[in-house]
């Protein structure tokens, strides 16, 4: 693998949204870690560790790419995008109307308010957004089925950040 290949690989990983990638191609081990949620405008902090064994790199390597490990929700988003049906355009994205820390349950001991596949009713509590020591229960404005959870538990979220994908039918 030459430097250009490695640079292309890093770019590819960044674009895919994956958070952690471990690759072994010939005698080169590459480990790439990027922060879980990139906010727009945030400088990408991608940690790249490249270990190359002293053995000669073969000119035309047979690349064996093991499965990419990443945050399951993001992965789910990309696979769904690949197998998109016309239904997806009818889905509603519930976005954050305030800023704070996103929690999926009332406390670490409690189960999440909602899970993928759950049917929700308008007015039902979906999550908590905590700001300035106040825990705000966020109620749904729609009824339907939770298709996807788009934000990670205990992470900071900003205004208009997508939280849940809901099928309103």
């Amino acid at each position, binding site marked *: 693998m030459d430097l250009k290949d490695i640079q292309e690989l890093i770019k590819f990983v960044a674009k895919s949204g994956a958070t952690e990638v471990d690759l072994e191609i010939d005698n080169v081990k590459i480990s790439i870690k990027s922060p879980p949620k990139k*906010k727009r405008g*945030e400088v990408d902090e991608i940690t790249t560790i490249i270990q190359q064994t002293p053995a000669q790199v073969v000119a035309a390597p047979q690349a064996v790419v093991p499965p990419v490990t990443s945050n399951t929700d993001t992965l789910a988003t990309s696979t769904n995008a690949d197998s998109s049906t016309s239904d997806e355009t009818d889905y509603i994205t519930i976005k954050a109307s305030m800023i704070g820390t996103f929690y999926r349950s009332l406390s670490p001991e409690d189960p999440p308010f909602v899970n993928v596949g759950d049917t929700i009713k308008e007015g039902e509590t979906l999550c908590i957004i905590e700001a*300035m020591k106040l825990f705000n229960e966020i109620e749904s404005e729609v009824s339907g089925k939770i298709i996807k959870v788009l934000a990670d538990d205990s992470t*900071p979220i900003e*205004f*208009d*950040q997508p939280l849940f994908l809901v099928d309103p039918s």
Partner: protein
Amino acid sequence: MFKKILIANRGEIALRIIRTCKEMGIKTVAVYSKADTDSLHVRFADEAVCIGPAASSESYLNIPNIIAAAEITNSDAIHPGYGFLAENSNFSKICNENHIKFIGASPKMIDGMGDKASAKETMKKAGVPTIPGSVGIIPSFKECQKIAAKIGYPIMLKATAGGGGKGMRLVWEEAVLEDAWNSARKESKAAFGNNGMYMEKFIEDPRHIEIQIIGDSKGQAAHLSERDCSIQRRHQKLAEETPSPFMTKKLRKEMGDAAIRAAESVKYEGVGTVEFLVDKHRDFYFMEMNTRIQVEHPITEEVIDYDLIKEQIKVAAGIEISGKNHEPKLHAIECRINAEDPENDFRPCPGLITNFHAPGGHGIRIDTHVYANYMIPPFYDSMIAKVITVAQTREEAIGKMERALDEFIVEGIKTTIPFHQKLMKNEDFRKGNYTTKFMETFEM
């Protein structure tokens, strides 16, 4: 020193603050509305948090969202820039309550200077010259005569409930005072249902000259000389310069000392500006005090060679100032470039900038947040750039500004560059012969 500062503002000032923070090794957090997603300050900051929709009230003025953004990013200080929440005493207080350092004045200071009547009283007590006037409502014509004689003509009779120029009379001599008194009261009664009158000395041909001050947590203050901001249209500054062409060494010392007295009497901390009206006799009167960094701060920076934002952050972190006053070593001029059409009554022209080339070279500084293919949102103020020139003489500074404005290309929208080009060629401006009345007779 702070580890991370959240900049609660947008546009050129947000970028200005981010730049100094980077130099100081302080991490930066930009906040932005949905309309500012592609804004430069968002890209230059280390982190960015979207805080609301386009409307200022729901984003840049949204205190809970801004505090929450500071919280989730672990910012230890907030710089409010100018405008928006910079002089909002409630915001200053809430920052304190949330253990976030507000890089600006204390709530008490902001309120004290925000209330014009109490600010005037505070200045009087500190021995700062204020516009002579009556104290409260004038009880009778006899009193009116006495006060007018004491202040000295010309005087302005003003309706206490007044506005829109109604119930106001300019009186040049005692002989016509009684007529003015009666007609003003009649007009005021008819317009506002209240004929209470007060009086102020009429400042002839005033110049707006302000003094930059800085104070630290130990109660010490220093001044960084003046800025002449008399070129104003509807009370909006268009261009500023330092030193003022009307200034003398004696006047600078008197005004500087008065400004320091003002700052020290209220134990002012941070950077601030004391605004004065200066009449043709070079008598100066306190107008108001701004407890924030001002738009035109770059011209002071260029002539005394100091980074005012850096000083502001240092003072907020508790570092003491040297206490030394600074006089201008060079001459600087600033032209505010707005997205407005000067040929059509300065009508705002937001839109897409299709082509952008900023001037450069020796003695030219551009503070801007716009670039080619940038869409100017219609929700905020129309200023898109500040062109600052600095040179050894006023003549050279004007020459550099002419050259810079000729080089400045902004296409796709209308800007006030043509206005400034005319201004630089204007005979009165070139002679330094202008007051706040200048724009009333200026023709494009």
